[in-house]
């Protein structure tokens, strides 16, 4: 696993809102939408179950629909939770989520367009889970394939954004797996539900041995949001974005040996940027060179060695 530099002081100072209104299903005209996303195995479902249970306990209608990304560990998992006086559709339309809880940073970024552009609240664990090879960063020389968006980039796109190093904080508190409870604590600051109800439900959902630590991190989550809303320094703040090494500036040049190509279509279909096509002779061709990131996937998977990528060094280009 690649190291990610972290600083332990808050660097993300979200825009301070003057009056923080909590989302209240009693007063809201429409159902309240909370989208929870993450990677398989992180506990997305647990978070959404807690929320749904509270809503039920408090007498609201609630619909929760979850999708496990092909049921694979490490795959995408997301859950839509909608609650209010009357809820009809189980899924949240794009641009209508009031709160987005991301248990994994890149997943959070990926779902950001589901948030309400004007009032959406983004709460994300800065934990990074690097996906397997096929999804990695394809820029030559990139150390890991991962989103380069930093918390400050995010802040510009949503009304309110919180990047919490929840996993780190939970680990310090004694249980890494309690990170999702910490995020529940953060979530609780945005909703009008009483704290007792949260703690009651969490206590029933988590393994008995971990109740204490879970309740402790729930508080931490609340405190973290409240303090950072006031602009006060917080523990386990956002991270310094990964500085890409020099080599990333290397560009590549792709060449195809047409006599060797058998037109199997692998490169065309496997290119993540879709820049290759088969021409009328059924030979691969680089149709959109400007889109090519030099990721090498086509070169690697061409069974006929017809594609080769050569780095063009910066000096040579300049």
């Amino acid at each position, binding site marked *: *696993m690649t190291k990610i530099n972290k600083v332990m002081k808050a660097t993300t100072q979200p825009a301070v809102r003057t009056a923080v209104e909590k989302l209240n299903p009693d007063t809201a005209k429409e159902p309240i939408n909370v989208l929870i996303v993450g990677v398989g195995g992180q506990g997305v479902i647990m978070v959404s179950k807690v929320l749904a249970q509270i809503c039920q306990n408090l007498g609201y209608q609630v619909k929760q629909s979850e999708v496990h990304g*092909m049921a*694979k*560990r*490490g795959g995408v998992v997301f859950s839509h939770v909608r609650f209010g006086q009357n809820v009809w559709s189980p899924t949240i339309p794009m641009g209508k989520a009031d709160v987005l809880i991301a248990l994994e940073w890149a997943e959070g970024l990926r779902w950001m367009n589901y948030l309400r552009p004007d009032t959406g609240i983004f709460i994300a664990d800065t934990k990074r889970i690097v*996906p*397997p*090879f*096929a999804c990695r960063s394809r820029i030559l020389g990139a150390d890991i394939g991962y989103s380069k968006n930093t918390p400050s980039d995010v802040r510009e796109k949503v009304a309110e954004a919180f990047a919490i190093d929840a996993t780190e904080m939970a680990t310090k508190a004694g249980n890494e797996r309690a990170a999702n409870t910490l995020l529940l604590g953060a979530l609780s600051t945005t909703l009008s539900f009483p704290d007792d109800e949260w703690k009651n439900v969490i206590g029933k959902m988590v393994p008995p041995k971990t109740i204490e630590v879970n309740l402790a991190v729930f508080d931490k989550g609340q405190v973290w949001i409240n303090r950072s809303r006031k602009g006060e320094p917080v523990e386990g703040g956002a991270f310094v974005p990964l500085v890409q090494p020099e080599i990333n500036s290397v560009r590549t040049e792709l060449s195809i040996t047409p*006599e*060797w*190509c*058998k*037109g*199997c*279509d*692998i490169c*065309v*279909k*496997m290119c993540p940027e879709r820049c290759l096509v088969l021409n009328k002779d059924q030979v691969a061709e680089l149709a959109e060179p400007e889109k090519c990131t030099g990721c090498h996937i086509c070169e*690697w*998977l*061409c*069974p*006929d*060695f*017809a594609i*080769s990528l050569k780095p063009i060094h910066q000096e040579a280009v300049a």
Partner: protein
Amino acid sequence: MNEQATLKSKEDMTQDDIRNFEIRDYLRLDLFPHFMCPGCGHGIALRALLWAIHAQGIDKDKLAIVSGIGCSGRVGTYIDANTYHTTHGRPLAFATGLKMARPDLHVVVITGDGDCLAIGGNHLIHAARRNLDITCLMLNNEIYGMTGGQVSPTTPADRFTTTTPAGNMEPVFDACRLAEAAGAGYVGREVTIHLPRLRDIIAEGLAYKGFSFIEVMSDCTEVNGRKNDLGSSPEMVLGQTRAMRPSEYDNNVVDHPFRPNSMNTGVLVRSNRPEYGTSYRNMVDKVQALQQKGQK
């Protein structure tokens, strides 16, 4: 000539060893395009092998590729090294002789599922038992491709082949478990789409002192794919990832695409059993020392 070939451990391999790889340096370019069908996974496997060889810095002059008969057997032809295209099922036996006679060579066997598990099965288990320093790459495409698509010891159940017109009823071999049970010191398995992982598994196998067995799950797009509607070439390659479960590299336990819950990928065995060639040469040294004593 008698000093043994040594290679880098995984930790010693630098990024540069891996990066500055130009496959054409390792190919017999005048033989191209190669004879394999469009989309054949063997080409990807060959890239992984050559890349691993490059990463290990192996001198082409000191590299001996021994292959058998079948599509896998022809793969070695394209490598610019000392290549031996031997008889059906016997490359491991040829390689055993070659490695014992020339411990300074890096001996790599390229074989297939039929070559290695059917006609050559006996040689596999005994090569594994002996644990002689050979790297055996078994390209498993689950079919006899060169002879037109007959059932092989790894053809999954219900597959249609020219000799199982009603679907295959025979159970399959798990080659890695077979090799492990027979004593192979290093066993790994990977699909071709995970090329960097495959490369690393092979590179470690090359460096391993003993018998390293690596099963490459390769696609036969023509006779296997078409007859069984496994999709186009890219679909078959992608099919490998779809059922993969990502996890940490070294101890990843991933279901096999075609046989859920029965096959794992990654490095499956690393042991430190004695390497046969070394043991043999130690014995020779002892015998010769005794002899000299006797003569004095």
